[in-house]
């Protein structure tokens, strides 16, 4: 690929992000502005913003790459990423909005009336955030190497620098329309090249799909256990992601939180058609990418290979821009929510504390990214989902739906889930992807039920510790808001 294309796309996206960040700094000026603006956001904007923040390197590059590697087994990934939002809608969306909490530690502290729970939740949230940023940086490293030929580490460093600059300067915060714009940029950047590739293939008279069944890597197919465990992780991991909750707060009430989630489901469904199509085309026309370890670069390389010429280069530039939009938007969303948690709980709530926290939030995962290797992006993000599903998901679900949850139960459950799932992840990494047994490679199927069981049993054993305000908070979570005057009354 022509290196100039990669440079131009990266610089354009970085400048646009920084510019919108600084512009946003000027419009969100006071605390009042912040809240007023956040309560007048329309569901469509809000849903686009959630989509923009959620669709990360794993979705943009990883899904197509994994489909290229393992075929129909990988189709469960986009299904799980989308259906996770269905679970979020069913069990979490409206009650969490009504809780008035802005972060997950805020919620657990209010619900269980315990500072200790807050501290443990904060640690877990920071761990999740760090783990989730690492694959974004791997994606950036891969993209820089493939598109410009520069050393990989430059890509990770560039993303961290741009994110730190915009976050520390105050941009990218509460600016719904930046993230909303990112969704549509990512969708366009993926959809337009796919359509052109398909047109080019149809024009060449190649039968649209000849043999997608061929297995380019001769990897063994995942067993039933692996697929089930993956679905547990993805279905129950989404509702604990720290940067997702913040977005729900910008809905005016519980009902619009539900409507927003419904739109998010539509947006994600449309988006995932395109990585799926890319993966299918790649399996037929570019299977050699799977063999030389460039599967995750499939989306980037496809237009250049199958369209070619100036059109191919323009399309490549578009995809590279979309990829960087994915790394930047997810990373900055995570850095902002992590910095909030770190500064509030560890460094004190000052502007300096927040800036220091933002640096910490971004630089630590950069270290991880240097130390570890990128295997499959979608796979490593899948493990992060397993971790949230074993820690944050039980405390949210039980906190929202079960009066009997106690602070002791919440803490032991989260710690158990974190140790089991974290232990499985570390052991799996040490053993290597090839030799780790299936139950270590996909731990969610046993770590999630164990975390739930521990949380319930310890809560039952410590019944006297149920917070006296539990009943009041539960009512607050579930009672519908008084209808606003402008809203049509139901029926």
């Amino acid at each position: 690929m022509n290196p100039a294309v990669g440079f131009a796309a990266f610089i354009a996206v970085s400048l646009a992000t920084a510019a919108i960040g600084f512009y946003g700094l000027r419009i969100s000026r006071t605390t009042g502005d912040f809240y007023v603006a956040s309560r007048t956001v329309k569901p469509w904007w809000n849903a686009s913003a959630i989509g923009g923040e959620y669709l990360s390197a794993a979705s943009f590059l990883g899904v197509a790459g994994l489909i290229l590697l393992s075929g129909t087994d990988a189709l469960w990934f986009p299904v799980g990423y989308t259906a996770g939002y269905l679970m979020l809608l069913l069990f979490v969306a409206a009650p969490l909005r009504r809780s008035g909490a802005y972060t997950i530690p805020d919620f657990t502290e209010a619900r269980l009336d315990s500072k200790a729970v807050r501290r443990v939740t904060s640690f877990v949230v920071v761990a999740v955030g760090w783990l989730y940023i690492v694959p974004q940086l791997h994606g950036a490293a891969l993209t820089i190497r493939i598109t410009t030929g520069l050393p990989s580490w430059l890509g990770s460093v560039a993303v961290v620098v741009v994110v730190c600059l915009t976050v520390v300067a105050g941009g990218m915060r509460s600016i719904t329309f930046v993230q909303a714009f990112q969704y549509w940029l990512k969708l366009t950047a993926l959809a337009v090249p796919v359509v052109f590739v398909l047109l080019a293939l149809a024009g060449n008279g190649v039968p649209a799909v000849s043999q997608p069944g061929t297995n380019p890597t001769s990897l063994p197919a995942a067993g039933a256990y692996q697929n089930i465990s993956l679905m547990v992780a993805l279905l129950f991991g989404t509702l604990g992601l720290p940067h997702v909750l913040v977005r729900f707060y910008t809905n005016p009430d519980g009902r619009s939180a539900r409507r927003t989630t419904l739109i998010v489901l539509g947006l994600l469904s449309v988006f995932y058609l395109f990585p799926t199509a890319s993966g299918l085309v790649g399996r037929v026309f570019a299977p050699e990418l799977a063999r030389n370890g460039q599967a995750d670069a499939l989306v980037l390389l496809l237009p250049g290979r199958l369209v070619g010429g100036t059109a191919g280069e323009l399309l490549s530039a578009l995809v590279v821009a979309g990829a960087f939009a994915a790394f930047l938007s997810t990373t900055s969303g995570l850095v902002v929510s992590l910095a909030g948690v770190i500064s509030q709980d560890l460094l004190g709530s000052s502007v300096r504390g927040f800036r220091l926290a933002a640096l910490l939030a971004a630089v630590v995962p950069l270290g991880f990214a240097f130390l570890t290797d990128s295997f499959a992006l979608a796979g490593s993000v899948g493990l992060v989902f397993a971790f949230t599903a074993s820690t944050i998901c039980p405390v949210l679900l039980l906190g929202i739906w079960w009066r009997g949850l106690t602070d002791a139960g919440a803490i032991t459950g989260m710690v158990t889930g974190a140790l089991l799932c974290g232990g499985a992840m570390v052991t799996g990494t040490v053993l290597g992807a090839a030799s780790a047994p299936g139950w270590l490679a996909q731990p969610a199927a046993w770590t999630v039920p164990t975390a739930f069981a521990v949380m319930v049993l310890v809560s039952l054993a410590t019944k006297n510790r149920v917070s006296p305000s539990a009943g009041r908070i539960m009512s607050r979570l579930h009672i519908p808001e008084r209808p606003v005057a402008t809203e049509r009354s139901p029926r």
Partner: protein
Amino acid sequence: MTRVRVTGPRSTAASASGRLARPLEIGEDSDVGRVFVRSLIRSQLRLAVVIASGFLLILVSFALLLALVPGLADSRLFGIPFDWVLLGVGIYPVIGLSAWLYNRAAARNEARYRDLVEDK
């Protein structure tokens, strides 16, 4: 240009949101109120569990269909293998439909609660 960081106690956030739409604060004031709230929570939970189980059943049946019906995975729809159509496209409308049904039913539960509270 002044910049203000949004920090401080959560009560600020709660009261800011309360100005627009305040929850119907009847909940724990009386025994009757408590019964109403508990039955609202129970009916919402039952609804969520029913929809989630229905969706998971469909998901599992898709997987079993492909695994157990011989030749189905290799048959083609518009030139694309059937398993790709089912998993890559066919599941998404099911997700959307489940979500839509849930939203309607959850709003109905809340309307019923509201009627009960206002009749009292």
